[in-house]
């Protein structure tokens, strides 16, 4: 016994007190976008959902309608989204609504669906779950930290003067390796690995790449061996994974799984006693950030199971090209449906913006209309109608405005004073109501975000800046790294990581300041640097274990216990040590791999050059070098990119300083958009690689794609649009006079001068 559609709507309206279907008809007199999104029975649905238009609500109600009206079994529905956080929110909302349905007196007394049986999660999470359940050999996934270290260990890309690497690097990034001094192995590794990942994620024809024979057109590599060289790097790395997946290979692994016999039970179900249903509905959230291989996975799922395919997203908010995503997946959804022999999709637009002040919505519409003619942006986006302002927020205040100051410091001071004034006046009750969104929140770099931190701290308003990336300046990090170096390495193994000296110096100063610690430290050193007949070697001590021993000394533990920030940073560093242990430390016994520091009887040319003769016990200098190259360099580079999911809970008592990427999916009452140092569109490595790889892409080789410069312009427009559209009550664009002059020339893709001139100063 299930609900009829009218009963479903009745309960929503009367018992849940919701008007879920909105009020703006998608066509004159027709149903609203929300209504179509929830009720459409088409085989393929293309839902375009602008910012703040109730996308999550629509997805949740569509899923509930399938469960409660159509009686679809939860195991038959795949509902994927982009982050764990978004998946969690979907599950919570589903659980909350289902609960309210069950409370309704109108709800029939029947067994409710177990929504934990839905295939709900990120595509990566679902791939692991599905293969774990249906595949005989369970998949094994390694962490991103471990994957990067494994890549660095297994792939030869170190020599900046190696012409093979250098020309390849230039083809992939537009930069030159040998000009980078001091050498930046983490940057090199990040860039090479991103390209290797892209080969998989762009779903390229690897044999064509390996032989440098394009599927059509001509190859764009500067040296003909560069394409095979890239494949060689990729294969070396994949061999080192030994059958395990990293996050990229998990996708191709899952795609391969879908063609196996084991996948049939998942796709088609099993008849007989088991009564397990097959897949009938696939709903994909944030489809604008799908990459080509994900696109193929979703179409393969739909075509092999016969399930409906509903994609939801907004290409104007596509941000993750640098991770292999492309807005083309959403924009060209209809075309792909034809290629996969699926019916043309029902286009559904969610247009009711319930987030922002009407003036902000009006300005967003104006903004997009001004951008459409720029750099062929209009051709690269889905045709969409303007947003309708439906927020309850009103007010006569200046809801969208600019602040222009002579330099970054004055700008930050002015914003800090404004926030302080509003806080003093009681308009803002929690500092978390304010966000500063920037292209980068690094304390160093061109746009130095430290000016904001200085300005806000002077007024006793703390900033929450999860992307500060100033690890190498934090004293406790230097001290711990230095202590590890001094403990394991008495000869200062040659290293290109100049920071090692600074780390050792910081540790030496600490040792001199604390006699108790100094004595303990001397005893410990004997564990690692010993005459050959010593028996006190602790062979099972891992790097993580050693770090924990050091941190257990009063001089560190007191500081960690008293300074939460230091404790957080040390937690991050320890996670890197754990990954290092997995990749570089360890021996294998019958029970598996035991991580440990690699000490051995060792005679090496490196030691001889340092004046040591004969056999001597100590830590393998190669191990030390790997330690420096991986960990010291990682600290120097500010760590890996912070995953978006780290921002699970934003503090309400700090002003949030976030990158635009970190702000995706969030909204804030007041947003200051720090867009200093505007520049003309500048293609990055992801834009260059898309063009470089196009001739080898079965999906794209015959298409006419925008140029790298045009795509860079489009991405700047999208990023700026996302920043503006986070605001509920007010958004303020923060620039310097120099930026204003550049905008006046109309050469800044993401800020059309006529739109900019329509904004009032604050």
């Amino acid at each position, binding site marked *: 016994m299930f609900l009829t559609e009218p009963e479903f709507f009745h309960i929503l309206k009367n018992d849940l007190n919701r008007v879920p279907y909105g009020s703006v008809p998608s066509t004159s007199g027709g149903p609203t976008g929300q209504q179509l999104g929830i009720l459409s029975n088409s085989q393929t649905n293309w839902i375009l959902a602008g910012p703040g238009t109730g996308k999550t609500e629509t997805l949740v109600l569509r899923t509930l309608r399938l469960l409660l009206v159509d009686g679809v079994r939860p195991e038959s529905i795949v509902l994927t989204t982009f982050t764990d956080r978004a998946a969690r929110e979907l599950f919570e909302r589903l659980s909350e609504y289902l609960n309210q349905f069950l409370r309704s007196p109108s709800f029939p007394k029947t067994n409710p669906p177990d929504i934990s049986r839905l295939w709900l999660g990120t595509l990566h999470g679902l791939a692991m779950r599905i293969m774990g359940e249906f595949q005989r050999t369970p998949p094994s996934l390694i962490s991103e930290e471990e994957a990067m270290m494994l890549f660095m260990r297994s792939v030869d890309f170190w020599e900046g003067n190696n012409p093979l690497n250098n020309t390849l690097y230039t083809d992939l990034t537009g930069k030159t390796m040998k000009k980078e001094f001091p050498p930046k192995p983490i940057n090199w590794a990040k860039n090479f690995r991103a390209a290797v990942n892209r080969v998989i994620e762009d779903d390229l024809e690897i044999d064509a790449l390996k032989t440098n024979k394009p599927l059509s057109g001509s190859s764009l590599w500067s040296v003909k061996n560069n394409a095979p060289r890239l494949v060689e790097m990729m294969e070396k790395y994949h061999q080192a994974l030994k059958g395990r997946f990293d996050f990229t290979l998990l996708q191709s692994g899952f795609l391969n799984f879908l063609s196996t016999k084991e996948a049939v039970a998942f796709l088609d179900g*099993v008849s007989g006693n088991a009564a397990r249903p097959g897949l009938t509905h696939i709903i994909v959230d944030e489809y604008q950030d799908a990459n080509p291989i994900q696109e193929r996975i979703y179409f393969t799922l739909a075509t092999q199971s016969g399930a409906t395919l509903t994609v939801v997203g907004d290409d104007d908010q596509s941000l993750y090209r640098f991770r292999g995503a492309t807005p083309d997946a959403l924009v060209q959804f209809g075309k792909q449906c034809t290629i996969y022999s699926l019916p043309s999709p029902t286009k559904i637009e969610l247009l009711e913006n319930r987030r922002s002040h009407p003036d902000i919505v009006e300005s967003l519409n104006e903004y997009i209309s001004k951008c459409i003619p720029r750099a062929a942006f209009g051709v690269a986006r889905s045709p969409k109608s303007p947003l309708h302002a439906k927020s309850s927020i009103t007010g006569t205040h200046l809801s969208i405005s600019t602040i222009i100051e002579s330099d970054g410091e004055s700008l930050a001071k002015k914003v800090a004073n404004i926030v302080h004034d509003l806080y003093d006046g009681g308009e803002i009750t929690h500092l978390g109501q304010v966000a500063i969104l920037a292209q980068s929140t690094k304390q160093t770099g061109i746009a130095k975000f430290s000016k904001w931190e200085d300005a806000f701290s002077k007024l006793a308003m703390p900033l929450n800046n999860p992307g500060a990336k100033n690890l190498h300046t934090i004293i406790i990090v230097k001290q711990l790294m230095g202590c590890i170096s001094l403990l394991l390495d008495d000869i200062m193994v040659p290293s290109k990581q100049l920071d090692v000296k600074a780390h050792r110096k910081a540790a030496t100063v600490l040792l001199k300041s604390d006699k108790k610690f100094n004595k303990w430290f001397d005893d410990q050193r004997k564990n690692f640097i010993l005459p050959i007949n010593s028996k006190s070697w602790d062979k099972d001590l891992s790097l993580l274990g050693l770090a924990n021993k050091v941190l257990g000394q009063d001089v560190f533990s007191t500081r960690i216990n008293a300074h939460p920030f230091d404790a957080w940073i040390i937690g991050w560093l320890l996670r890197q040590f754990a990954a290092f242990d997995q990749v570089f430390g360890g021996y294998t016994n019958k029970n598996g791999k035991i991580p440990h520091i690699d000490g051995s009887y060792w005679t090496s040319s490196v030691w001889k050059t340092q004046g040591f003769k004969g056999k001597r016990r100590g830590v393998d200098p190669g191990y030390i070098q790997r330690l420096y190259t991986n960990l010291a360099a990682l600290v120097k580079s500010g760590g890996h990119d912070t995953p978006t999911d780290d921002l*699970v809970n*934003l503090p309400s008592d700090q002003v949030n300083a976030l990158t635009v990427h970190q702000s995706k999916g969030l909204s804030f009452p007041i947003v200051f958009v720090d867009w200093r140092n505007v520049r003309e569109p500048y293609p990055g490595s992801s834009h260059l690689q898309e063009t470089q790889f196009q001739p080898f892409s079965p999906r794209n080789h015959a298409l006419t794609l925008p140029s790298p410069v045009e795509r860079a312009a489009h991405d700047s427009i999208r990023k700026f649009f996302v920043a503006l559209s986070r605001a509920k009550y007010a958004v303020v664009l923060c620039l310097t006079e120099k930026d204003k002059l550049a905008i006046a020339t109309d050469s800044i893709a993401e800020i059309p001068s006529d739109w900019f001139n329509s904004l009032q100063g604050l």
Partner: protein
Amino acid sequence: MGIGDKLRDSSGSQKVPNLGSEAAKPVFSITSDIFLYRRCSRQYGFVKVRGYPDEAGSQAFIGDLVHNTMEDVTLHWGRMGTEPTDSEVAEIMIRHYKQLLSQGATPRDWNALKSIGCKVMVLVRTMSVHGILKQINSAEQTLLSDQGKHIFQGRVDAVYDTSSGDFEVWDYKSARDPRGFLQKLSPKNPVYSIWQRYLADNEAQLQLYTHLFETTYHKKPTSAKLMFIPNIPLTAPVPGANKLKVEDTWRQYIPPPIAKSAWESFHTPKEMGPTGTGPIFSIPVTKKAIGVAMVDLQNTANDILDQRKKDNWPIPAATQRPDKEKTCDVCAVRHTCDAW
């Protein structure tokens, strides 16, 4: 006049709205948040909030293995329509064992691992033969309950349909049964209160699950049971006298089921009560008991919220110290802890 006046609504009717769902409500898992915090607030803060890595990944090895295996056994029934054979159970368990190893986790005690795996096999064989397995209609079901400032989350290991049309909730425990310790120890022994606390936590866990079922589905389970795997008797000795590899131990194990009469003897009120020694412990799920448990859990959740705000994770007071072996010896931050 202030510098921020242009951002003030002159009519005074529109206030700056509050931060909405971005200040996301924390979700507290009953086992990995609430109970971890109760055992040691410091360990909770460093591991769960600040993300300190576990040195050997050993803490949850056996628990994960047992739960993953039992979930798969139930799924096997659902998918294949047949009970898994001994060798299929062994292979399921080996799969999860290898997966845990590949994630860098290491069990602390290899022999204990082999033994607990064999006990899982005895349990599955017994449940198959006595028709229990086919009456489990759901495994690892996630339930949420919005409590205002936070959300409680529980994962129910198994929902068992009784022959009378009602249902029970079950939770598998791979840790030792606190009832045994409480009977052996004098109440004056300082360790007594630790085990008493563990027992109370176990009870509260299933009382919360009962509450979650009631609030989510408006149906109340008739009973809630803990199943202590270490208390499952081995019906055949562990093969290989601890000389075999873990995988071979389980592959070679072919256990007879526990006899029906013996299995039923585990279900007497005495055996399922606080002084029982069998694998099953039945938890009271009266309205009053659930009410008391909920208040207690709420208090802990509020404590966690307060501590999170301060980002301060002190060592528990001497009288509240956790069990050394169970909590401290496997703690990722024991080296910096005076209690260790």
